[in-house]
């Protein structure tokens, strides 16, 4: 088992299928082990860590049922707060979404379609940054549903889409407006209530600090 990444909330190990399960099947695995945080009190930490592990497994599965590419889950280790998953090959969209919007249009359109499907199936991802999308072949695989939930509320879906807008603004600042326009197009084409959700984003932004309210 090899530690390949330590994110903010989980350690990611890579491992061979046969090594982990001791069977004849072969393949590469990812083990996502949630880290307990020393800064949080124990009661709060345990609640958060276990709940996110289980809810992530459920959401990954439901997203797949809705037609969104997500990694396969082989096993859930409740004691270690770990998900044992398929290793998704490819590049993060964060690294691929560079250069002129023309070249990256296909990618952001695929993101729009998938997020539209998610919301149409009442799935909130909860952390829609481009670090959590992997470009594999001609599809975009969504990972890290740890902050996600099920909801049909326009409000929650709008916050979810708003996060992506923020991520585009802060990380892909050169062309974020073009990307955001392309996202909105395919999102609305895939999701019946898409227009309503996008309109709500305006209200959410107005609740924040320092937004011009057209005085």
């Amino acid at each position, binding site marked *: 088992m090899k530690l390949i990444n330590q*994110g903010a909330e989980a350690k990611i190990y890579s491992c061979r299928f046969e090594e982990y399960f001791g069977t004849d099947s072969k393949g590469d695995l990812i083990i996502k082990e949630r880290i307990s*945080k*020393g*800064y949080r009190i124990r009661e709060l930490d345990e609640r958060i860590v276990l709940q996110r592990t289980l809810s992530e497994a459920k959401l990954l599965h439901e997203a797949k049922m809705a037609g969104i590419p997500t990694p396969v889950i082989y096993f859930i280790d409740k004691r270690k707060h770990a998900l044992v998953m398929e290793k998704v090959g490819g590049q993060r969209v964060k690294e691929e979404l560079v250069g002129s919007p023309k070249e990256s249009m296909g990618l952001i359109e695929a993101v729009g379609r998938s997020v539209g499907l998610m919301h149409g199936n009442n799935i909130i991802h*909860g952390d829609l940054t481009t670090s959590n999308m992997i470009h594999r072949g001609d599809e975009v695989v969504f990972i890290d549903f740890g902050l996600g939930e099920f909801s049909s509320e326009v409000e929650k879906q709008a916050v*979810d889409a*708003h996060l992506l807008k923020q991520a585009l603004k802060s990380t892909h600042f050169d062309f974020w407006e073009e990307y955001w326009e392309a996202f909105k197009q395919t999102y609305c084409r895939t999701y019946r209530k898409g227009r309503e959700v996008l309109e709500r984003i305006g209200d959410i932004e107005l609740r924040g600090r*320092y937004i011009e309210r057209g005085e």
Partner: protein
Amino acid sequence: MITLGIESTAHTFGIGICDKRSILSNVTDSYSGEGIHPRLAADHHARVSSNVVKKALEDAGLSIDDIELISFSQGPGLGPCLRIGATTARALALSRDLPIMGVNHCIAHIEVGRFLLGVRDPVTLYVSGGNTQILAFAGGRYRVFGETLDIGIGNMQDTFARAIGLEFPCGRQIDQLMSRGTKYLDIPYTIKGMDFSFTGMLTEAIKHIHGNSKEDVTFSLMETAFSIVVEATERAMAHTQKDELLLAGGNAASPRLREMCRLMCDERGASMHVPPFDVCRDNGAMIAVLGMTEYDSGKRMEMGETKVRQKWRTDEEDVKWR
């Protein structure tokens, strides 16, 4: 370049003086009332302004003739309060024939940390009454990576304090109550990526007041709120791959928040930096430091450009000095 900085975005009227090497003086006088009434706070600022200027010059051992640049908080903040600071700045600059520089209040919180503590490229957790933001430098600007979707953490704390009968200012009392609580009550943990919101947990905590001790409710509420901002900050550090944390704003005074930030940084091998409290809270010295830094980078401002900017976001400003 000896610079006089004027802060007046909200409660606090402050004058600070700095030169290239250090902060020479930093004097504040704050409006206190239940919550904040913008016009009354502005009246307060107008009343105390000349005395605060005098005191700051005295503390620095300087006369007004020694000042070479006037810097002021141009925004964001409350209009009536900002206008007192801007008026003071214009009056000083015009009467002494000095250059003037309007600066962004939030960026000043970051730059004073860089100036004093030698932090290079931090993620900044800025926690105060009105603001709760996670800021970092990327692509020539200070970008907002995470922020509250409703109220600031200090604002939440004040509202809660009033509900349990504490008087303003309540920071220290909240810290004490929190440290004496032992039982964790269920409080909603609302984090959305790197953004968060506080009104839901505030409502829930107020519901818990009946039938629980003040200590336990305060403990549960503040542990939850701090855990959320620290988690969001850690996410921003992982996302931007930066390994320095700068804590800023009035709520940076909380010992428990500092402890949590330190633990988080230790766990990820990052360093954590907190300026002394008098430059963490709203103050004039940070405004002086940023004004001087911008002036040195070649930026100039005409009198006609000194109108206050109440809703000025940090990411609207091109950073020329880095």
